[in-house]
């Protein structure tokens, strides 16, 4: 087990970070706090609101699509709603999500530090996030109406439409800046603030994931920054950079857009994979299988993920050679992800499995992400993609990876780290109920989309042919099951934060990483004294003959 040379015993005198009184008190003590834990919670509050708004838009979309023709809204509204659903979910939930909430809260603790490298910049990140969210909300409310371009803002429509595209562009730009600052904070933190004895290969795997993610945030985000700025400039000045009439190339816009947005999906999934690597050892009571493989695969995913962007553009009008090249490269990117799945399963094998709620979400992740990932490989095959591009097949694919993957990963993290964050426990029986509602609802909602997409149902279409009706009907029912699960989950989390059973147990799950050595909830500076780390993470006592207890000399 991760041995700690200096005791971090509970200190009855020091208040938890929740009760800590710093320079400011009351609400100012929160919105002016540079404590990474408080900032993590600030993000959690904001994110939850945006997530629920995004869910609502999705729910409304499914209501509209339950039968052909108009159901509850007109086509223009539908276009705006799917745009907003995408913008909110991607830029305000999935991309910031795990790093902003759990990365902020736990990264310093996991490496034995008192905070991140730049605490004030951390707070600035949150302010930028809030500003971006505000701009997005304003874009909905002002005359002109919310953008109807799809979250991808493709040229030429994004330049021509009279909806509030400018606000949406600036919202996304601001959110990108927030993401960049978080990324550079995390990279510096991992390099500079690891506790004595914590070499790179003694770091928990979620730290490796967050580190790889942070690099993608730093390098890829500026590209979309400039791209969005150019669309804004185009709307204002008509420079012509993407306008064919003036010699520009709209496909070039797509290239620039996806040079960020493909790596962005790895920003979305890597931290969730990190969470899976954290949770499995705890609830299988086994050392993680293939630590170095998992660690390096995080770097590999970030690396290869920057080479494949044009597989979003196979039907856009690229050269044949380019299409072949990107299809080939796309095959490569699946390999490190598969390595992770293999290692997770191998960790489960002959483990002592406890099906607590975090573990349920993690197992669901593996199942759902595998489906999502494999269908991604299918789409990477050029001939298949020509058929399924811009159909519901794609929609199903990315929901399986982003929602079944990152979403469920987020829920897993929530249910795993909840006791440590709040010093309370949620209703665990209820959690299992809504887990199943979420899992069943998810599959009923999204699996039909694979089938109907394969059969030709386009995406972003307000209306459809009668032959697709039964699939849409089933899918919408699935959305109701899913939302029922969500409502119960929100209720459980919310109620438990306020009135859950109080626990002071530092280690309710029997985890082996540093967060389970400190007070529940943590004190302001996390550790009474910075620990000295001597062993690898996830060391569980085992009777296996090949089990090696590794310790530093």
């Amino acid at each position: 087990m991760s041995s700690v040379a200096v005791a971090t015993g509970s200190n009855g005198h020091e208040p938890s970070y929740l009760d800590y009184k710093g320079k400011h008190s009351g609400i100012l003590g929160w919105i002016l706090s540079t404590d990474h834990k408080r900032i993590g919670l600030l993000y959690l509050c904001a994110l939850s609101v945006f997530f629920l708004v995004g869910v609502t838009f999705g729910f409304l979309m499914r209501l509209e699509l339950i039968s052909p023709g108009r159901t509850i809204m007109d086509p223009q509204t539908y276009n705006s709603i799917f745009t907003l659903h995408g913008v909110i979910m991607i830029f305000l939930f999935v991309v910031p999500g795990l790093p902003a909430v759990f990365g902020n809260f736990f990264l310093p603790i996991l490496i034995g530090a008192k905070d991140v490298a730049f605490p004030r910049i951390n707070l600035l990140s949150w302010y930028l996030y809030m500003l971006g969210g505000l701009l997005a909300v304003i874009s909905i409310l002002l005359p002109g109406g919310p953008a109807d371009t799809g979250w991808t803002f493709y040229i030429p429509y994004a330049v021509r439409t009279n909806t509030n595209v400018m606000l949406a562009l600036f919202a996304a730009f601001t959110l990108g800046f927030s993401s960049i600052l978080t990324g550079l904070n995390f990279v510096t933190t991992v390099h500079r603030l690891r506790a004595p004895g914590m070499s790179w290969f003694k770091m928990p795997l979620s730290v490796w994931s967050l580190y790889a993610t942070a690099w993608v945030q730093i390098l890829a985000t500026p590209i979309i920054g400039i791209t969005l700025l150019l669309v804004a400039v185009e709307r204002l000045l008509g420079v012509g950079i993407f306008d064919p009439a003036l010699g520009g190339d709209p496909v070039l816009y797509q290239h620039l857009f996806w040079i960020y947005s493909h790596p962005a999906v790895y920003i979305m999934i890597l931290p969730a994979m990190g969470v899976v690597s954290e949770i499995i050892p705890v609830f299988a009571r086994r050392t993680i299988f293939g630590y170095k493989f998992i660690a390096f695969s995080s770097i590999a995913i970030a690396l290869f993920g920057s080479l494949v962007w044009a597989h979003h553009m196979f039907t856009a009008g690229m050269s044949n050679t380019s299409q072949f090249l990107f299809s080939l490269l796309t095959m490569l990117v699946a390999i490190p992800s598969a390595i992770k799945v293999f290692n997770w399963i191998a960790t489960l094998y002959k483990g002592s499995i406890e099906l607590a709620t975090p573990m349920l979400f993690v197992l669901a992740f593996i199942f759902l992400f595998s489906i999502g990932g494999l269908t991604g490989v299918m789409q990477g095959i050029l001939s298949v993609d020509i058929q399924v591009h811009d159909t519901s097949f794609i929609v199903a694919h990315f929901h399986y990876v982003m929602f079944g993957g990152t979403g469920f990963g987020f829920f897993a993290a929530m249910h795993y780290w909840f006791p440590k964050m709040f010093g309370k426990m949620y209703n665990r029986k209820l959690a299992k109920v809504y887990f199943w509602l979420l899992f069943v609802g998810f599959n009923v909602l999204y699996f039909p989309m694979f089938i109907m997409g394969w059969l030709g149902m386009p995406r972003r279409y307000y209306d459809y042919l009668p032959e697709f009706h039964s699939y849409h009907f089933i899918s919408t029912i699935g959305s109701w099951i899913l939302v029922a699960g969500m409502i119960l989950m929100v209720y459980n989390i919310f109620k438990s934060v306020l009135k859950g059973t109080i626990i002071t147990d530092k280690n309710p799950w029997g985890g082996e990483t540093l967060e389970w050595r400190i007070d529940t909830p943590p004190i302001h500076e996390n550790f009474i004294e910075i620990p000295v780390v001597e062993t690898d993470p996830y060391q569980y006592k085992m009777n296996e003959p090949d089990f090696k207890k590794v310790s530093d000399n």
Partner: protein
Amino acid sequence: MQEKDHKVSNSHNYSIYILVWLALMILTTVTVAIAGMDIGRFTVATALVIASVKAFLVLSIFMHLRNEGKTFIIFVIVALFFLGISFILLFSDYSLQAGL
């Protein structure tokens, strides 16, 4: 504050910076002169090579990269790699296309 990875060097000396500045000025003159000559296809390449040399001088001396240690140098390489690979892969679409 002990910093193992920040090598103390002759960074407290004015002369190296002035020397580098001279080199930059000379290189600028060279690049302007070459632009006046007709070397056809190599125009862009030459200009970019000279610009890269200038950038390298600024990076390693003015920005103290050579004093910072391995980590920072790897960082720069990673960033340049991402930019470079984007260029290369982007051109797979444009250089091999039959017309626009």
